[in-house]
């Protein structure tokens, strides 16, 4: 069961919303119904968010994302369509039921923090529990825990005005965490922070999410942020869904020109990971074979170096053609002494941006080694460069992703976050991305 499910959501502000919904459902643009004197903020939006997922809604200002998030917890009633939270249709709930749902299942973090200036940091963090009627000692204990989680021990007695912006938003986050709801809505939560602090907060959020497994719906207008945080991203344009997919799907296979234009300026090196650019490791050499066999393998494949890999795919090291050639001339029988074991190894989830330094220093291609220490692929320097080129007009093959890895870096995204089925009228399914993957990298990693 999805944690949150939105089905054909509409939000129209104005006098006669019913007629506007009909027209918009026919596919009219919202500018075409201006004569009705209505503002269509959200049009026909459907998606499902799985438990434990970070679902990012991205769009420019006026694209309806703030309206959308406020319909998910019933702050705004939708004009048409339904919102289900844990299987309950919240649009049908009475006021009291809606309040109960908000206090027990969904908490929210706000763009401008929305901390109560007249309450201490501790009382702010405890607010959700206070509303629920939890006794003072207990709620303060929980609030202290939540503040410790976000690294604010020792600030409990201060008031929000005494804290910096980043710390204030940590309190906002602690308030949502202390409420102990499974779902957290974050409305442009980091947009008001300066870039360095924003990066910190993003890392912290990913870390907390990995630890606590909350379902997070995150609103942002910053594509880089969306790519960094989102297991899946929903791009909104003029109130409609332009595309829903993983960061790499959106980057490599934009559904339309709008999304393509949008992702043009994205720092691809931060979104793409080692696993999405790596190539199949050919050739590999068995460590039990002699130098002569190794030299032949390399000459057959016309390379100057090769990786030495055991049968169980354990990486031993690498050898260079000139070294082996000399050894063969000297009639050395054992390969062991010739293997260079001091190699640069990278994890499949490492963002491409972090690979350049190592690639520059290493005489070999970078070896990609997974958690189980298995050798899954290589990244030659030329592949790294190709990854930087945008998809349009290039067919290097290196940058078409595997379509299966979330873009979150650092390996903090939960392994089980499943890509949910896209809505009926949604963007292309993940298979489409897989189809275009022409290189052998994906196969090589399996």
């Amino acid at each position, binding site marked *: 069961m999805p944690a949150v499910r939105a089905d054909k959501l509409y939000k129209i502000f104005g006098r006669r919303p019913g007629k506007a919904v009909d027209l918009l459902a026919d596919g009219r643009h919202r500018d075409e119904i201006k004569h009705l004197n209505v503002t269509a903020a959200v049009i026909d939006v459907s998606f499902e968010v799985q438990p434990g997922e970070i679902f990012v809604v991205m769009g420019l200002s006026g694209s309806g994302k703030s309206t959308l998030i406020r319909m998910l*917890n019933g*702050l705004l009633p939708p004009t048409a369509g339904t919102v289900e939270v844990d299987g309950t249709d919240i649009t049908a709930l009475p006021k009291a039921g*809606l*309040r*109960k*749902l*908000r*206090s*027990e299942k*969904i*908490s*929210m973090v*706000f*763009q*401008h923090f*929305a*901390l*109560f*200036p*007249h*309450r201490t940091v501790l009382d702010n963090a405890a*607010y*959700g529990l206070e*509303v*629920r009627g939890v006794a003072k000692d207990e709620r303060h204990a929980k609030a202290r825990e939540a503040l410790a989680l976000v690294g604010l021990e020792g600030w409990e007695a*201060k*008031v*929000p*005005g*005494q804290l910096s912006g980043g710390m204030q938003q940590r309190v906002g986050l602690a*308030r949502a965490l202390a*409420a102990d709801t499974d779902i957290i*809505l974050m409305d442009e939560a980091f947009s008001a922070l300066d870039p360095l602090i924003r990066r910190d907060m993003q890392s912290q959020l990913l870390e907390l999410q990995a630890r606590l497994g909350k379902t997070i719906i995150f609103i942002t207008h910053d594509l880089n942020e969306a790519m960094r945080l989102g297991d899946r991203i929903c791009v909104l344009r003029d109130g409609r869904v332009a595309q829903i997919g993983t960061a790499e799907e959106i980057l490599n296979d934009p559904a339309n020109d709008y999304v393509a234009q949008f992702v043009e300026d994205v720092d691809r090196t931060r979104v793409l990971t080692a696993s999405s650019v790596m190539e199949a490791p050919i050739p590999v050499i068995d460590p039990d074979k002699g130098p002569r066999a190794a030299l032949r393998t390399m000459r057959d494949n016309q390379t100057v170096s090769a990786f030495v890999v055991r049968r169980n795919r354990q990486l031993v090291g690498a050898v260079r053609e000139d070294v082996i050639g000399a050894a063969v001339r000297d009639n050395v029988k054992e390969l062991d002494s010739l293997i260079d074991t001091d190699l640069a190894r990278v994890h499949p989830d490492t963002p491409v941006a972090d690979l350049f330094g190592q690639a520059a220093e290493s005489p070999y291609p970078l070896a990609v080694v997974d958690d189980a220490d298995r050798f899954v692929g290589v990244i030659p320097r030329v592949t790294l460069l190709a990854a930087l080129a945008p998809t349009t007009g290039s067919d290097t093959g290196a940058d078409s992703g595997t379509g299966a890895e979330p873009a979150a870096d650092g390996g903090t995204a939960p392994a089980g976050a499943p890509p949910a089925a896209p809505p009926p009228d949604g963007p292309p399914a993940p298979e489409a991305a897989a189809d275009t993957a022409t290189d052998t990298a994906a196969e090589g990693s399996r």
Partner: protein
Amino acid sequence: MSATTLTVTVPRVPVGDTFDAAINWLRANFEPVFDFVGMVIDLCVETLFHLFAMTSATQFTLIAAAVVGGALLVRRHRVPTLVAVAVWAGFYVAELAGGLVATAISSLPAPLFLWAMNLFGSSYVYPPLVLALLLLAALVAIAFAVGRDRRLWIIAAVSPVVLLAVLALHFIAGVQLSLLVAPLLVLLALFVAGWRVALFSALGFLLIISMEKWDNAMSSLALILVATVVAVAVSLPIGILAAQNDRVSAVVKPVLDFMQTLPAFVYLLPAIAFFSIGTVPGVIATVIFAMPPGVRLTELGIRQVDKELVEAGEAFGAPDSQILRRIQLPLALATIMAGVNQIIMLSLSMVVIAGMVGAGGLGNDVYTGIAQGNVPVGFEGGIAVVVLAIFLDRLTGAVTRFSPAARAQRAAA
């Protein structure tokens, strides 16, 4: 040569007559209501005036008890304090109803009271005074028993000492009451608003006393306080409603405009009609004249609270009443207090008009000055009004400092 006349006959709309008829109809049908309201207001003003200008020993004692009790309540020692007050109230009612305490006192051995009676030169023991003294003793005992706070101890120790000093000075040494009440008001200003205001108040009150306007000033003060309490009690709920509901706001605004622009003298017409002359029509006219800024500033204050904060309350599932009490009102308090301040200032400006209908006090002096061409009396009355105005303005302005929002703001600065 016959000139055609262009005179158009405009029908006479009987606005004034209708108003008069409405007043008469109301008087005929709701007289008991007006009588009751008038009686309550009159009683309140009288009591307050007696408290300020003819303070009895019992009242002094109760004030001291209120100071200690207030200090206890602020430090959250609610249960013992409220128990003590409840016991006192119970005995007081029993005394009023059946003379219970008087009976108890007369059954006790006489020497217990004789020395005090001799000291104060009184011929009988006044039971409410005994009760008040017992309440004060109980509260002081509680303060020393449960309090952990040195300031609380100081307050608990100083209050009875000051009380005894005041009682001794007035009832034994015969110092005038005005010279004792004025320092207490100065003390209040010192605690609430700081030494500058206290210094000004001391000088101002001395001036009033030397002009022999003290009793009149206290009479006006009583009238103003009652009018202010009524005006706040009426304007606060209206302001809250107007802030929450645009339709109420749309209705209330023109009514307030009407109330503010209608010449103040015109209020006196219905006020006199309903309540005849005296203090009550003065209070009523003052309330109507002073109320609008209270409503406006309450509405403004609540509407000014950051929408995101209210939304945060909603997002965590807080009911509307809780959002109002815990978020909107505390954050709007500074603006609301500015409204209260305005109410007090406008009440003061109505004092003279109230004096015209026989409300007495400083207004009466000014009115006499105008009517009889008696410049000294009129001018002195006016000066006394100004002193009172500045005292009350600074005091209410400073009260805002104690709100949580203001404290947080200071901490953040």
